[in-house]
């Protein structure tokens, strides 16, 4: 876009500085997680651990059922992701490829509610869960994360680009609508579906306020909730806290590293259409 040498140099300098700003805090917490308690409380601080130790992870797992938290988070994230992938692609398919009464108004209703944050309507959700005596259950934790309105919108955009002729040809060959969905639509929209899956997984994993509200017993804590409560109770023990932070970040980084292409493509095709 700009070929001037001075701008290129400025761009390099600015981007390198920002990259240090975005990456260093992360490296810093990983380094801290492997330091001994003595080294953590040293002044001046050391950057890389002198004698790397797993002690902090041991202490964290000893003092809290953190493995249970991880399991809870994984279960919720997988359940939510599966539900969102199914409802988004099926809903997107129907809105993209069928004509039916009230299609426009229904779609507008879904779209309009997409931007309203969970925080704004979590009180009645809590009352519903309370009334059916489901507090502290996996069902309650997954419940508000079973659909993603943005996902329906996004999959509709993706599936609209599949040619109608293809679906019509399958119908002429006697394929049922369900077969068309499972064999043609899911297959051809799979990159978009992966993007929604990643999005759903990270959203469920990172969710904080809903578990905070709906869970009170320690063994139903998620990783995020467990970490937040642990660091409140033991705010001086930075070693195990850092270890917990690393544990809660790693799955996200793995998902991101494996599916980077889908994520970036997802943002590229939809980000500004919200």
């Amino acid at each position: 876009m700009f070929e001037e040498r001075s701008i290129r140099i400025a761009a390099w300098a600015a981007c390198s500085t920002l990259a240090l700003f975005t990456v260093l805090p992360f490296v810093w917490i990983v380094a801290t997680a492997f330091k001994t308690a003595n080294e953590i409380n040293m002044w001046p601080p050391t950057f890389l651990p002198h004698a790397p130790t797993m002690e902090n992870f041991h202490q964290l797992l000893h003092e809290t059922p953190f493995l249970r938290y991880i399991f809870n988070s994984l279960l919720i994230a997988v359940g939510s992701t599966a539900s969102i992938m199914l409802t988004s692609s099926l809903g997107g398919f129907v809105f993209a490829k069928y004509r039916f009464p009230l299609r426009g108004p229904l779609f507008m209703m879904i779209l309009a509610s997409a931007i309203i944050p969970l925080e704004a309507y979590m009180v009645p959700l809590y009352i519903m869960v309370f009334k059916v005596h489901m507090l502290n259950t996996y069902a309650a934790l997954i419940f508000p994360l079973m659909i993603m309105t943005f996902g329906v919108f996004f999959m509709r955009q993706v599936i609209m680009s599949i040619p109608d002729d293809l679906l019509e040809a399958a119908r002429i060959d006697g394929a049922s609508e369900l077969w068309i969905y499972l064999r043609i639509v899911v297959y051809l929209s799979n990159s978009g579906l992966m993007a929604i899956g990643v999005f759903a997984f990270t959203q469920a994993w990172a969710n904080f306020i809903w578990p905070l509200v709906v869970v009170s017993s320690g063994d139903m804590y998620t990783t995020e909730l467990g970490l937040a409560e642990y660091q409140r109770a033991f705010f001086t023990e930075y070693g195990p806290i850092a270890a917990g932070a690393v544990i809660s970040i790693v799955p996200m980084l793995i998902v991101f590293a494996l599916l980077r292409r889908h994520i970036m493509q997802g943002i590229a095709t939809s980000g500004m259409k919200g």
Partner: protein
Amino acid sequence: MSGATQHLAAAPFARRSQLRRSWAQMRRNHIGFVVCALGPILALFVLIRIYPILETIRLSFYNYNITQRRNPFVGLSNYIRLFDDDPFRTALLNTIGFSVLSVIVTLALALTIAILLRSIEHTAATFELLFYIPVVIPWVPAAVIWKWIYDPAYGALNYVLSGFGVARLGWLQEPTLILYAIVLVSVWKLVGYFIVIYGVGLRSIPEELLEAASLDGATAWQKVVHIVLPLMRPIILFTVVTCTIICFNVFAPVYVLTASSQGAPAYDFKVVVGEIYQNGFVFYHMGYAGAQCVVVLLFVMSLLAVQFLAFREK
């Protein structure tokens, strides 16, 4: 209308064939599949979105306490109470101040970097990846990372600043500093996402347009102001709305970074969602919390309206 019914009554054959025709049309449109596929999704959607949103509004007119049997209608008194509620007013002002600052810094930085990245195109992808790392990190560990950096005694930030001769500061303990401390966390967390979004928008600007401007002797600055920014306007508007809503709902980092019941030494920085949490789920004043939720709803809706009107105007 009446003419049509008369006509149908008079001609049963025509009516039957019309019914058959509309039935055939419905079959052609696979109405059965549509109902089976969309029905459960819409039911779920109503249950976990539409109903809770409407119920929030209804609750705000009641003195609702989940532990009580009687929950009387109280009209607007929850809303009247909002005006006299000092913690809520503080929370609202804090949240607005935080959002304004955070949105401006995040988006200005993201746009500048995204534009600069376009002049070093071959390394842009690597940089975008590095900028995206904090986006992937959930809010709780992100706040934990920064709590450690802000630590008054052993924190890295005070250490770095001591190199410039600045005395140790209590970033999370000083009421004036904690706002900036939380803004910095949110800029760190969000900037990478908006750089990627702006990057997509910038790549869609036709290269010939900029080349033509160069041939006419336009400077880089002129190209940005007269070509890039006007073309990016809808995307910028979209990001302002998205980023404002994210910031207005700030809660997890505040929960981690501020004082706790156990007495972690930090200033009690109040935000709107924190007040909703307190009133709704700590004191169980759910009607009152509902009124606070309606404030958030109205805020989000007005932002959407602004965006909608701005797009229509084009």
